[in-house]
């Protein structure tokens, strides 16, 4: 048997100190991904430090209407939280679009953000994978990559971040509070996950020992109308082929505020800044929405079997923005849509 030790952390500081002094240690949340990877032989920790008993299990109000979400809050609990449903429904929708009821009962918010790619080569220790074993190569480029990245990939890796929650949080400018050996800091969601470059083994900017303690969500007025939509291969319990999280405010037919993030297209949730910039002040029409998405996706470099993600994401985004425009208070005054 491959033995490992298990500890239940009683304090964040001690947990961080333990990790910092044990290169072979990992934090354990709900275990819905890490334990699977241990069974597959992809992860071989010597020590698991269970952080689910740390006092990061509440969803609290922040001044001004923001939320402080404990990293050990379970996905199911967050998805049903009244403040989330009220102030940022995209987060609840993203959670409910992923996994199954059983998994959501176990999985934690922090663990969800740090889940690994489901690239089939990454999950099979019998095959090369630069993310799992740097320098061994990336068979996905020529092989099975239907689910993999069209944006921000590198010759070394085309993995996608598989999660939905991170996409919604990215659109809403959330940040994670991180406690590390050197103290605490705040990392915006948009800066948490890394693009692979030539270091695909590093999923995030976190260092060994860094512990996500909370997700911080500032007051975002338009988040109350935010939505998350995904396209999947079956009606439930499958990873998003592509997903979109969006919030939109329309004033007299023109886009006044917009937030847009894409999932399923890159190694990190993809904040669509170029699309947002293009949309601000533009008419809230399908054509403008499509042009904005195309601007964002212009640098896309799809592979043989995932090129469909580009038109799929465009169609899903246009539909989602039209839906939001339709319910925006200023929608009644928007210019008539072209046929």
């Amino acid at each position, binding site marked *: *048997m491959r033995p490992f030790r298990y500890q239940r952390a009683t304090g964040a500081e001690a947990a961080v100190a333990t990790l910092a002094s044990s290169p072979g240690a990992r934090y354990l949340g709900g275990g819905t991904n890490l334990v699977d990877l241990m069974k597959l032989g992809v992860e071989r920790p010597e020590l698991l430090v269970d952080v689910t008993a740390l006092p990061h299990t509440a969803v609290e109000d922040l001044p001004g209407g923001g939320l402080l979400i404990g990293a050990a809050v379970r996905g199911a609990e967050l998805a049903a939280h009244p403040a989330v449903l009220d102030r940022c429904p995209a987060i609840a929708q993203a959670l409910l679009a992923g996994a199954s009821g059983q998994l959501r009962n176990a999985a934690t918010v922090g663990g969800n953000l740090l889940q690994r790619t489901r690239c089939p080569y990454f999950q099979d220790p019998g095959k090369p994978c630069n993310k799992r074993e740097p320098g061994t190569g990336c068979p996905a480029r020529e092989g099975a990559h239907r689910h993999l990245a069209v944006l921000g990939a590198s010759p070394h890796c085309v993995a996608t971040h598989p999660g939905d929650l991170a996409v919604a949080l990215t659109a809403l400018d959330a940040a994670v509070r991180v406690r590390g050996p050197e103290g605490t800091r705040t990392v915006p969601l948009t800066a948490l996950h890394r693009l692979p470059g030539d270091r695909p083994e590093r999923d995030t900017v976190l260092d060994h020992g860094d512990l996500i303690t909370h997700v911080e969500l500032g007051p975002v007025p338009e988040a109350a109308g935010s939505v998350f939509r995904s396209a999947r291969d079956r009606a439930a319990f499958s990873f998003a082929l592509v997903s979109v999280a969006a919030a939109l405010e329309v004033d007299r037919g023109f886009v006044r505020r917009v937030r847009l993030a894409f999932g399923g297209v890159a190694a990190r949730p993809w904040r669509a800044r170029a699309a947002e910039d293009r949309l601000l002040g533009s008419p809230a029409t399908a054509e403008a929405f499509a042009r904005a998405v195309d601007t964002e996706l212009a640098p896309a470099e799809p592979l043989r079997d995932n090129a469909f993600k580009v038109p799929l994401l465009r169609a899903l985004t246009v539909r989602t923005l039209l839906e939001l425009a339709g319910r925006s208070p200023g929608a009644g005054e928007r210019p008539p849509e072209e046929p």
Partner: protein
Amino acid sequence: MTDPESGPARRPAPDCSPGGGPPPGAGGGARHAGALGEPVIRLEGREKVTGAARYAADHAAEVPLEDRAYAWPVPATIARGRILSVDPGPALAGPGVVAVLSHENAPRLTDADDATLLVLQSPRVAHRGQCVALAVAETLEAARAAAAAVRVVYEAEPHDAAFRPDHPGLYAPDTANAGEATDRIHGDPDRAYEEARFRVEAEYLVPPLHNHPLEPHAATARWSGGRLRVYDSSQGTTVVGRTLATLFGLAEESVTVVSEHVGGGFGSKGTPRPHVVLAALAARETGRPVTLALPRMLLPSLTGHRPFTAHRVRLGADGEGRLTSLEHAVTTYSSTVAEYTEQAATPGRHLYAVPNSRTTHRVTRLDVATPSWMRAPGGCPGAFALESALDELAVACELDPVELRLRNDTAEEPDSGLPYSSRRLADCLRSGADRFGWWGRDPRPGTRTEGRLLIGTGVASSTHPALAQPAVAEAHAAPGGGYRVRIAAADIGTGARTVLTQIAADALGAPLDRVRVEIGASDLPPAPVAGGSTGTASWGWAVHQACRELLYALAEHGGAPPEAGLTVRADTTEEIAAVSDAWARRAFGAQFAEVAVDMDTGATRVRRLLGVFATGRILNPRTARSQFVGGMIMGLGMGLTEHSALDPEFGDFTEQDLAAYHVAGCADVVDVQAYWLPEEDSRLNPMGAKGIGEIGIVGTAAAITSAVYHATGIRVRELPVLPERLLPGLAEWQRAVVV
């Protein structure tokens, strides 16, 4: 889902066994509740839902857990070549590791005419994932870690794991699976096609599909005094016992195989699979009872799968839509270990009247895992192709797809020329159309929308052989009035145990609770597997026969058994050999589907699925409905969600677990209804029943893709219906795609 036509079938069953006439005491008295045709609840249902039912890796009472060792296979990491060395050292150094078996030290096996079972016998590697070593340890976890620590050095050779319809290695096998003829030609199909008023020619592709029963292939093996006892997850203990006896050079009676409960098989447990041989090898080598439950990710490479099939279909029809020419050419692959040719060109030999036809199979051998049976082998992927082509022909002829099929109905089997013993395909189509609300359908595609959804409907025919195989059953009358029936049948979740009890009670004229049926062990009278939709017909025939003969024997004893009880044994070999070959025997049905396609994302959902079947007498409406509905749900998965891909670089399948291989989930299954028509057929078996385990899946995928065509105008000829196969065609529906 109440259905006047779906009620209990009439009793008593027509008697087609020689000797005729009711036996004394049978059928004359009051009928008993729970007899044949009643919706009896599964006898083992309570055990199953409470967790008391024992599966192959259970049986703690017989094989104490503390005595057991656990095995974990080491899969080959090359697709072709040979093993130069196996170093078990690092694995054996681990705590609790008992042994590492490989071709270098494993006990020798005798060929049992299935090369996939000659595990750990040679350094040859024929496909990635082949078991090249087996770690045995005190715990499952230790075995898994030990397997990962075994060092295998290979000499890899160039491999070919890329199938294509024009693969240079294609050849004509002697026969296709199930003994089906490789080629059948009638008339002059080429000339008839050229002269046809309407013509359709198209290619269809069905990807590799995996059976993935919920219970993985598992076995617990124990040797004692030269005898082997195995608890196996199997669709038939008789064949597993005989095969193990051959492999290990034992007398048949020295091997006992028990499959008390089985968590699904769908064909993948229809013959012995490598796991049971590995468990027996490990138990022999270590002197310990050994449990081996295959990890999910090894199922695709070790337990068989439905291979990729490529179909070229040409149909020609006259001005009335009557088929004048039918051609169905199938290409597929097998492994280098064993030949298996999915008999996917066969539906055209049975479904429609057509004077000129050519149906052919070609197979090539790749360096991949060996394919095998999966629910309705051949007929299911074949029907997808043929029934899709029928739908295309209906469009070409401007005929309603139901009407087109009705015009091509036949009372004689087109291939054999034999009359059907019964065939109610046309009635299934009409009844289904009535129930589904088909009539008056606007055939134009893309004419029904609901918001951003495109709605469409489709139909397909289904057929499956109605066969029976010889079996032996034993019936025993105890002095107190109770009965015991024994037969090595298998209940893989179908309700076989329950239905056989009903058949016995019916034949004996006894209440259900006086009859105990023992199944699921190879030391019971020998029986064929639960496969080919033949189980109930084959076992039921023997059970019926044994019970009748018991009544005769009892009559000779004055109606009551002697103190020791009375036992008779019936073997149906002669009866089945005497079955008239003047008739073609098949089950028929029709599936109707309504789909909704999201015009933006291409997401496709089946809103309604309705099947009507004519399958002889329905013996238990409750478990029968479950079989029909289950088959249709599996067909829904085939149509929309299930697909696997051979990875040409590595030679294995990309989809190795249930997160990646998408079996339809509850959210995908909205409204599935199954109905059946009363059908009396005295030329089948004493129960008048046709098998029902497979026909539900047969036409379902074609009904779904035809509905997608009706919804969108897009013909999906490669399964499943994925967004990327619809998006290009949906562009015109999207408001702002082109900028």
